[in-house]
C-alpha cells in the first residue's frame, strides 16, 4: 500500500475548482524508468494544471490485480480518470506534445 503515500504529491492549497483532474500513473516497480515517467507527468501538470490535479501512482508489482480495471497493457501508463472521458497515454512521457494531446491539455490553461 506504499504508492498511496505518494498521492497528492503536488502541494498547494485548494483552488476554487478543487481536484478537477484525477490521474493515475501505473508503473512497474520503482525503477528509474518509472521515476522518469512520474517526473515528466508532474512537470506537465504543474505547467498546465497547477493546483487542480491529483496523481495516484500504482505499482503493479505490488498490486497486480489493479491492472485489469483500467485495462493496462503497457507500463508506464497514465490514465485520466477525471474529467471524463477516460484518456490513456503510455510511455515514459518524454514527448511533451504527445502527453498534451493524449490528456487533452492543449486547450487548458
Amino acid at each position: 500500500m506504499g504508492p498511496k503515500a505518494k498521492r497528492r504529491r503536488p502541494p498547494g492549497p485548494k483552488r476554487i475548482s478543487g481536484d478537477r483532474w484525477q490521474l493515475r500513473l501505473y508503473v512497474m516497480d520503482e525503477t528509474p524508468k518509472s521515476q522518469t515517467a512520474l517526473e515528466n507527468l508532474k512537470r506537465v501538470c504543474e505547467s498546465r494544471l497547477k493546483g487542480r490535479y491529483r496523481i495516484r501512482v500504482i505499482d503493479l508489482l505490488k498490486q497486480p490485480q489493479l491492472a485489469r480495471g483500467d485495462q493496462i497493457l503497457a507500463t508506464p501508463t497514465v490514465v485520466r480518470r477525471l474529467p471524463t472521458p477516460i484518456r490513456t497515454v503510455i510511455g515514459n512521457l518524454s514527448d511533451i506534445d504527445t502527453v498534451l494531446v493524449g490528456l487533452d491539455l492543449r486547450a487548458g490553461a
Partner: protein
Amino acid sequence: MKTKATKSGSQAVRLPKCPTGIQGLDEITRGGLPRGRPTLVCGGAGCGKTLLAAEFLVRGAVQYGEPGVLMAFEETEAELVANVASLGFDLAGLVRRKRIVVDYVHIEPGEIHESGEYDLEGLFVRLNHAIDSVGAKRVVLDTLEALFAGLSNEAILRSELRRLFRWLKAKGVTAVITAERGRDQLTRHGLEEYVSDCVILLDHRVNDQIATRHLRVVKYRGSLHGTNEFPFLIGAAGLSVLPITSLALNHKVSVDRIATGIPRLDAMLGGLGFFRGSSILLTGTPGTGKTIIAANFAQAACRRGERVLFFSFEESPNQITRNMQSIGLRLVPLVKKGLLRFHSARPSLYGLEMHLATMFAEIAEFQPAVVIMDPITSLMDAGTTSEGKGMVTRLIDYLKAGQVTSLFTSLTQGGHVLQQSEAAMSSLMDSWLLLQDFEGNGERNRVLYVLKARGMAHSNQIREFLISDRGVDLVDAYIGTSGVLTGSARAAQTAREKAEALASQQEAARRKREIERTRMALERQISALRSEHDASAEELRQIDQQVGMQTRLLKTERSELGRLRQADVSVAPGPRAGARNGRIH
C-alpha cells in the same frame, strides 16, 4: 478413442504432450499440443480459431484437471460465454468455480497515445496474476494481433512479443495463440516467427456454395504428426476433426446375421441375410426401388425389436411413410412405437461437417441398431468427392465401432452403372447390391444382383425384383438362348413353354390312342380269322360226316336194293365199306 490416442502419443515420442480433448486433433498430433510450449493457431475470419482455443481450455479444466486462463483481445467475457455455450460449454460456471479466468483486454485503436518508451509489463502482470490466481496450466491468447492495431511502435511490440513467448515457456504453461491469416504468410503480423514449436492452420473454404472447414498441422517441432488437411466440424459438442488416415481398422466384428425383410434376398445371401454391424451399399438408377428395399430392411429390424434411424436426404418422413403404405409397408405404427425414427434434411442445408455432426448427435441419442442413409450420394454432393468419401469413411467407422448395421443407398445417374464415386465408396462397403432397369418389349423391369457380400456365400444370379401392392418379391429371371428375359417377356416365355409342353402332351396322348385303336383292330381281325378258321374246320367235319352218311346210306340203299333184288347175301359189302368209312374218319 481419446485414451488410445494419448497412449500411442506417449509411446511414439518423448516430447511431453498436452491432450486437447478435441475429437480427432489428438490423433493427428499424436497426443496433443506440445506441453509447456506455445502453439500458434492461425486462420481467416470465422474459421473457428477462438472456439478451438476455448475448447482446449474448457476440456483441460473439465477433463484433465488443468485450470486455464483465457486472455481475450477481441471478445468480452459475456460474448465468449455466450459463444462457447453453443458448444455446450459452461464457461461461466467454470469461471465461478475458479477453474478458468477470463480476462478481456480492451484495445481501442487510436485511443492510446504513445509518448516515449514503454514496455508491455502491464500485460505480463495481468497474465501472471491470472495464471497464479487459479494455478493455470493452460493459457489462450485470442487474438494477440489486436495489439498491432492499438500500438504503433512495432519495434517495441515485436521485442515485447518475443519476450512474452519466452516468458510463457519459462512459466511452463501450454499456450494457444490465435492469429489472423496473412496474405502471403501464415499470419498477418508474422507471429509464426516467434511461435515455432507448433503451428496449426485453419481454413474455411467454399466449394459449390457449401462451406467446409479444414485443419492442417503445418509444423510440429520434435513430433510426428498428420500432415494432411483434415476437414473438421463445429458441432453441438465442440470441434471434431476427421482424421481419416489415422483411423485404425480394428472394429469388433459380429457373426450374427440379420434378415433383410425379403426372404428371397436372404436366400441370395447364403440364406441368412447380412452380417450385423456391416455396411451395405445399394446402388441403382432412379426408380429401381432403393428406398423400398431400405424400408423393408427397416421394417424387418423393427419387427425384431431393434431401433432404426432413417436419414432421408430427398424425401420428407411423411412422404416416405405414405409411399411405403402403397406397397403394404406400414411404417407409421413403428414410428409411433419409437422403433423407427426419421431424420430428413436437405443436403444443401449445410456443409458435410455439419451433416456429419448432426448425424453423430442423432445416432448417439437414439442408439439405433440399424442406420439407413437414403441416398448417400446426394449428401456426398454437398462436398468434393474426397470429402464425401472421407465423410462416409468416418461415418462407417463410427457405426461399426458401435456395431450398428448401416445401409446406404446410392443413386447412379443412369447409363454407366458403376460410377467412379461408387467404386471409391464401394471399397468401404461389406455388401453391395445393384438394382438395375431392364428395358425391352416396351417396358422397364427391375432386376437385382448381389455384387459382393464379404464373408458369406452369395448368389451370383440375377433376380427380377417385383413391386406390388402386397410388397416386394424376387423371382428368377428367365435365362435362355435369347438372353435374360424379364417382365411380360418372361411371362410370355413361360406361357409359351407351357403351351408347348401341353401340345406335346396332347400329341402323345393322341398317338397312344391311335396305336391302341390299331391294336384293337388287329385283335378283332385275329379273332375273326380264328372264328373263320374254326368255321372251316367245322365245315370240313360236317363234310366228312356228310360223306360218311351218304356212303352208309348208299350201302344201306344198295343192300336194301340187293335184298329187294335178292342179291347174293354173301357179297354184302357192308363191313368193308364200314372199314373204309372208319379210315376216312
